[in-house]
C-alpha cells in the first residue's frame, strides 16, 4: 500500500472524501454489528458501490477498490467455510492442511482489516490510497 500524493483526482472536496471513506467503512459493517457473516460486508459494499456509481472519480475509484477487496475476501473465506462444512457434515477430517488454511485465512482477514481502516482514515483526509494488490486492478476498471 502506498500513498499517492500526486493525485490524479484533482481537488477532493469534503463530501467526496467522506463518501470514499464510508465505502471502506461499509466493508466493516458486519464486524461492527458483531455478525460473523462475511457476505454481509460484500452486500453492504456492493449497495454502496451501486449508489455511488455515478459519483465523482475519487468516490468511484475507492468504492470499487473496497468492493474488489470484499469479493476477494469472500472467495477466500467461503473456501474455508466450505472446507469446514465438509469436515463437520462429510467424511473429511481436521488435517494440518485445514488448520494451515485457517491460519492463512485469519492472516489475510487481519491484513485486509488493517488496510481497510487505514484507507478509511486516509481517504477521509482526502488522501488517495492505492493498495498494492487491488490498486492496479481498480485502475483498469475505473476511468476518470
Amino acid at each position: 500500500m502506498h500513498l499517492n500524493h500526486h493525485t490524479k483526482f484533482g481537488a477532493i472536496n469534503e463530501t467526496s472524501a467522506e463518501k470514499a471513506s464510508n465505502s471502506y467503512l461499509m466493508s466493516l459493517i458486519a464486524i461492527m454489528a458483531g455478525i460473523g457473516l462475511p457476505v454481509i460486508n460484500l452486500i453492504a459494499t456492493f449497495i454502496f458501490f451501486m449508489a455511488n456509481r455515478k459519483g465523482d472519480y475519487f468516490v468511484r475509484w475507492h468504492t470499487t477498490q473496497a468492493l474488489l477487496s470484499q469479493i476477494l475476501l469472500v472467495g477466500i473465506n467461503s473456501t474455508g467455510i466450505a472446507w469446514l462444512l465438509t469436515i463437520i457434515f462429510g467424511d473429511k477430517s481436521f488435517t494440518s492442511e485445514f488448520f494451515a488454511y485457517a491460519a492463512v485465512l485469519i492472516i489475510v482477514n487481519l491484513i485486509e482489516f488493517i488496510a481497510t481502516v487505514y484507507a478509511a482514515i486516509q481517504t477521509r483526509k482526502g488522501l488517495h490510497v492505492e493498495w498494492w494488490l487491488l490498486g492496479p486492478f481498480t485502475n483498469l476498471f475505473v476511468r476518470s
Partner: protein
Amino acid sequence: MKQKFFIHLFLFFMVLFGLWFILSQIDFRKIMKAEERIEQMEEKIGKWTFRYFQTEYDQFEEKRLDTLVANITRDLFENNKFQNEEIQIFVFESEEINAFAIPGKKIIVFSGLINFTQSEEEFLGVIAHEIAHIEENHVTKKISKEIGLSTLYALIFASYQFDIVKEIARTITSTAYDRSMEKEADGLALNYLIEANIDPMGYINLLTRFAEELDNLPKELRLLSTHPDSFERSEILRESLEKKTPASYQKRETESWQEMKALMSL
C-alpha cells in the same frame, strides 16, 4: 497496467500458497492434542451411552453369553486382526430388531435381531457391518453431525448429562447413517467376511429379508428399516460379490450359535 495487476495477483497467490504450504508442515493436530481429546470424548460418551442402555434395557446377565459371542465371532476377529479387547459386543434384551455401534468401540445387539437372523452367517454379517462403522469412525461422525461437534467437545469437561446422552442414544438407534457411510460399511463388511471365510451371501440375504419382511412387522419393531434401501444395498453387494473371485464356503452351524439362539428364545 493490466500486466502489473496480473503480476501482483500471481505474487499474492504465490505468497498465500507458500504460507499455506509452510504452515501445513506443522502438526496442528498434535499441538492441539486432537487425537487425545477425541479419544477422551469418545471414551466418555461411550461410557455414558452404555450406562444409558443399561438403565433402559436389560442386559443378558449370563456370563456364558460373552463366551458364546466370542466363540461365534472368533474367525471374524482373528482373520481381520481385530482386537477383542478393543471391540466389545453386548447383547441386550429387546424385541427390537436392531444392532448398532456406540462410541468407545462397543457394539450392542438386541435379542430381537438374533431371533430374526436365520443363520450364523447373517448374524456375523451384521457384526461385520457394525465393526466397519467403528473402523471408519462413522459413529462419532454421525453423532457430531446430529448433536454438534462443539457440544461433544464440551462434554469432555462435563458430568453425566442425561438429556444429551438420551439424544445420543436416540441418534444411534433410530437414525440412519449417510448413504455413503452405509455403502462403505457394507463394502468393508463384505471384505471382512470373505477374509474370515464366512459366506457373505448370509449378510446379503439378510438385507433382502429386511426389505421384504420388515413391512409385515409392527411399526415399533421396524427400527432397522431406517437403514436406507436395504434392497438396493443387497443388490449392490451382490454385484460386487460377483466381481470377486468365486469361493466356496462351508455352512456354519457351530454349537455356540445354536446355544445362543436357544438362550434368546427362553
